[in-house]
């Protein structure tokens, strides 16, 4: 982290989806900042609200059925208040987005060159020739060996790894200060994943952008992130620098999750993996008061949970929601 400058500041963000006449928040009370030149990982399982958060930042949620409350501040501008026209000037120019499925994310009937060029059309004054040159430069930057050839190809003619490089080139086209990557390597093989993650790191070094990395893969987080926010049921339950999160996790959910990673230690008898009891409640069934993780750790006595758990800083840069962590122990362990 070269500078401490905040690129993006999210305050008390709520994103609610409409079910009939009611809105249910998929993202609830999320406050977080993205700094220049850092990779902020947002980790969570399905239903945690991590992708909804990403969609809300870039303003791509369905406006008819979604309600957004709170602030997303960028350069003093509250993005939640922007109209479509102004938002379109931010999208692709100030915020670039990388998606999970590289094949689906690209238009099947348009050459990849044209798709990258499209990013430049609406945000630069470059003439067509200059744009095409820029496209070739971008393809080269994302490690495509033969940019001339690739620019003329269609998505289905490329391998999965190359497609994801193209998707990254699209996101990078206007050198946005903020990049949101939503599960960028989930659909890829591990060797390709490693290359793509390296590429994202390299790009960040070159451009000093801030990257929000949305993922469920703790390995990917451990290898790339600077800071991590763990989401559960729409809320951030823990936020910490990456090394702290993995070496000294506090929140019961973080600890449970880390415990369920299949890891076999040398020479040890294979132990059963830790299983988090119960399931993530559906959006409509989510308890709106009290500790949302409470029913997943039923052996903990009621009195350790807060009425209204808040995210609080327990050490510099390390925030945990509520106080239940102070008393938490795994089932079968000694009570602290």
């Amino acid at each position: 982290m070269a500078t401490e400058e905040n690129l993006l500041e999210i305050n008390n963000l709520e994103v609610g989806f409409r079910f009939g006449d009611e809105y249910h928040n998929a993202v609830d009370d999320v406050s977080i900042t993205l700094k220049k030149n850092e990779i902020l990982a947002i980790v969570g399982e399905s239903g945690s609200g991590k992708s909804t958060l990403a969609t809300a930042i870039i303003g791509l949620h369905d406006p008819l059925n979604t309600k957004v409350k709170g602030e997303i501040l960028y350069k003093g501008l509250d993005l939640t208040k922007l109209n479509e026209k102004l938002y379109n000037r931010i999208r692709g120019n100030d915020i670039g987005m990388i998606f999970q499925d590289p094949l689906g994310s690209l238009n099947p009937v348009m050459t990849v060159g044209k798709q990258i060029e499209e990013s430049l059309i609406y945000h630069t004054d470059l003439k067509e020739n200059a744009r095409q040159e820029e496209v070739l430069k971008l393809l080269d930057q994302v490690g495509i060996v033969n940019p001339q050839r690739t620019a003329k190809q269609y998505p289905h003619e490329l391998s999965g790894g190359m497609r994801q490089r193209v998707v990254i080139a699209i996101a990078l086209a206007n050198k946005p200060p903020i990049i949101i990557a939503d599960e960028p390597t989930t659909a890829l093989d591990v060797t390709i994943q490693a290359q793509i993650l390296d590429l994202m790191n390299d790009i960040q070094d070159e451009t000093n952008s801030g990257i929000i990395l949305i993922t469920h893969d703790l390995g990917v987080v451990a290898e790339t992130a600077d800071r991590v926010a763990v989401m559960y049921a729409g809320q951030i339950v823990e936020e910490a620098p990456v090394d702290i999160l993995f070496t000294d996790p506090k929140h019961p959910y973080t600890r449970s999750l880390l415990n369920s990673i299949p890891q076999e230690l040398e020479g040890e008898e294979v132990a059963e993996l830790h299983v988090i009891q119960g399931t993530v409640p559906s959006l409509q069934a989510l308890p709106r008061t009290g500790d949302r993780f409470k029913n997943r750790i039923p052996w903990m006595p009621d009195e350790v949970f807060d009425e209204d758990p808040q995210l609080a800083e327990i050490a510099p840069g390390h925030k945990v929601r509520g106080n239940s962590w102070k008393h938490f122990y795994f089932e079968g362990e000694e009570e602290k």
Partner: protein
Amino acid sequence: MSFLELKDLKVHFPIRGGIFNTIQDWVYAVDGVDMIIEEGKTYGLVGESGSGKTTIGKAIIGLEGVTGGQVTYNGVDVTNKARSRRSEYADYNKDIQMIFQDSTSSLNPKKRIKDIIAEPMRNYFNYTNDQEKNEVIRLLEIVGLNEEAIYRYPHEFSGGQRQRLGVARAVASSPKLIIADEPTSALDLSVQAQVLNFMRRIQEEYGLSYLFISHDLSVVKYMADDIAIMHRGRFVERGSKEKIFNNPQHIYTRRLLSAIPQIDPLNREQHKAERRAVEKEYQEQQIHYYSEKGRVYDLQTFDDQHWVALNPNDKIKQSEGGN
């Protein structure tokens, strides 16, 4: 001890074209694979997409035709007989079951859980109604679902629960081998843990074997005793889990292992440097590990319980690797 054997198994797919739609070329999805499955063991089959790992599973279970080689079950040649209705192959059909990445599509949405799980029992055993019901309830308990589940339909369950139902159904015919093709790839971490635990518990209870097909090396490492690494339709390396993870020999194996993200943020720069070094070696050295046509060499015995596909003429390389 061993009951299932694959000898030089080949599954080739024709590519058609030309004016008369004749066969122009072949895709060598699986191209000469040997494997011996013993009772009560778990075999990990690892490879990247397109390596042919799923095709092996499908060929054993009869979802792909075998082009060459042999599958023998208890010494009987059962190549391409998986779907035969003849009684001599009935044991083979009963004893080999498969579970898939997405159980949803393999669970009939119109049937109740009781009928779904009882179906293999009805095919292979003569249970009375009560026996059948008790058996279904017992299986559901093993995979952590309670008795009420039997009158419900598949869509009423979550992804992880459906995957466990898939396991329960595969177990219903008391098989000796379950082929599990990416059984937890679509699941969240905490749910994956549950499915893996149940799979292990079932193994202990029934003494069955697994052929665990996955791209996820950490899951395979957790589950398997023996591991085979696949590339281009062939095994590049095979051996006990310890040998593969602690002393990988083939450059492809080493590259795959080095690419697995490590949960060790304090040493990640070191991992990255190692990974880049292996990648560089892979780019420079890979010609020594593949024939001129890019084919993976035949496996050579490298060590006890460890086989590597090295160039048979390249003795120097081999002795180097032995160090």
